[in-house]
């Protein structure tokens, strides 16, 4: 169990993490979601005692991180796949971590096997692909067989097979009763793995809820209708007391409506339909709405500037 109480980190004038209070519970996967720059990594670094909070407190099983004897046996973390010396072999990287926490040497081979790196155990880490680096980082997190696991953006840059492997691993770790805390900036990723959701934006807590509850509250279902006799259809639906929203591209959206009901109404009035489809707003959209206020780096929505002709392009014509 990880407990945060009023956790705050300020860099000069900028609030990176602003008064976060929540609890990460055992036995489930807790997703830690927020746009880039929301303060997720800073929060995780403070949990591990790497960064000092400006105010507030984090406790791991009731204790401060630096009070844990052999901390890798309590909490294993993957913060950054590159947080290792590239000139050291995978085996030696794990061995020095194991020795520092009094973990038996035999455990190194075990975790290498778990993450599928046994074949390259003696190879230097700098030759590893991003996916192999992530696996080595995860091996380091599993080394002390900890009750709590923490992963910062574990699927970043992984191929589909690697992503699938990590999802399965996190679920099985939670199923063993461990506390699993995983950050991501992708709602779709969280929807597949997390049971509980903590959402932050600009360092502030935006939501702390179960995944099911979040889906129920934030997923909007509607029926999309398209017809060449749009005006007539609008009238008919209006008469029937159905609320219609006009969306762009000429389609109509009926909130909470039943496709069957709308189809029957159209048939009665002999209106031609080109589309009649039930829709579910994605969780990604719900997440975007939730964090819209707090996104720090807005991309400009207009397309890239017209490319200028490269210098010398016109020489043939002159």
């Amino acid at each position, binding site marked *: 169990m990880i407990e945060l109480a009023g956790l705050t980190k300020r860099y000069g004038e900028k609030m990176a993490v602003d008064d976060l209070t929540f609890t990460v519970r055992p036995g489930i996967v807790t997703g830690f979601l927020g746009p880039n720059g929301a303060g997720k990594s800073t929060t995780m670094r403070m949990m*591990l005692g790497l960064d000092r909070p400006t105010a507030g407190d984090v406790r791991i099983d009731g204790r401060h991180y630096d009070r844990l004897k052999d901390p890798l046996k309590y909490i294993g973390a993957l913060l950054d796949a590159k947080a290792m010396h590239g000139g050291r072999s995978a085996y030696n990287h794990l061995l020095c971590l194991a*020795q520092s926490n009094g973990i038996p040497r035999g455990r190194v081979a075990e975790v290498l096997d778990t993450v599928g790196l046994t074949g390259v155990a003696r190879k230097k880490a700098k030759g590893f692909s991003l996916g192999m680096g992530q696996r080595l980082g995860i091996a380091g997190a599993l080394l002390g067989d900890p009750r709590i696991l923490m992963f910062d953006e574990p699927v970043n840059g992984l191929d589909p097979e690697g992503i699938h492997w990590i999802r399965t691993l996190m679920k099985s770790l939670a199923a063993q009763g461990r506390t699993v805390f995983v950050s991501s900036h992708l709602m779709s990723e969280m929807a597949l793995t997390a049971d509980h959701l903590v959402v932050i934006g600009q360092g502030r807590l935006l939501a702390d809820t179960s995944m099911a509850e979040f889906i129920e509250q934030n997923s909007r279902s509607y029926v999309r209708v398209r017809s060449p006799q749009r005006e007539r259809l609008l009238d008919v639906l209006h008469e029937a007391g159905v609320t219609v929203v006009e969306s762009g591209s000429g389609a109509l959206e009926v909130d909470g409506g039943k496709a069957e009901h709308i189809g029957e109404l159209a048939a009665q009035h002999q209106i031609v339909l080109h589309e009649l489809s039930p829709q579910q707003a994605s969780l990604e959209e719900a997440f975007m709405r939730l964090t819209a206020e707090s996104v720090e780096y807005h991309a400009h929505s207009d397309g890239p500037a017209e490319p200028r002709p490269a210098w010398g392009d016109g020489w043939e014509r002159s």
Partner: protein
Amino acid sequence: MAAIQVVRSEWTKIRSVASTVWTLSLAVVVTIALGMLISALTKNEFDNMSAKDRLSFDPTYISFAGMSLGQLAMIVFGVLVVSNEYSTGMIRTSLAAVPQRGTFLAGKIGVATGLALVVSMATSFVAFFLGQAMLGSHKTALGDPHVLRAVIGGGLYMTLIAVFSMGVAAMLRSPMLSLGILMPFFFLISNILGNVSATKKIGRFLPDQAGSRIMRVVPRIDDDTPYGPWGGLGIMLVWVVAALLGGYVLLRRRDA
């Protein structure tokens, strides 16, 4: 957190990177080879030397002539041992494993110092014996007064240069910055300060100049240095302790 666990872990770290082997071998080879070369040249030039130079001729010190260059490799060793944690990002993994930062730094510097001491002592003795062999009839022996002190002192000097570099690297974190300050300082600035009469009095309190006094058996003529061999090493030790304390305080305070 048992300190022995940290020592074991740091030993694995230090022996599993290539930079340890090549910096230390370079320090050994350069110190010994250059010492032999300069000893051999001195033997051939001895007859042309002035009477004054012959009076202050110090066969022990001549055989350590290679240290001026060999110490640069020791500096690189000391800097890399500490700063590669930062340049690779390993520091976050290391401090998550050992959150007691004082224990972490002490373990790391303790292990690196132990290794540097063994290598430096061996280098100092080998440089002495091979240097004497080159000097032919002008040689001295380990049993002569103060010679053993100078040879052991040579090993301590090299070790302390490495530890000083570790402290500086712990403060500065960046290997490039640390080397960019330490290398020109010990290779150029300290020599210039020590040889220009206006700055000579300050120059001899610098770590390398004070520390290297212990390798001299025959003092220079009209030498007015206000400290003896052990006093000089003491001054160097003060520099080393200051660098280590600075590194510790900053490591305690900083976010990793």
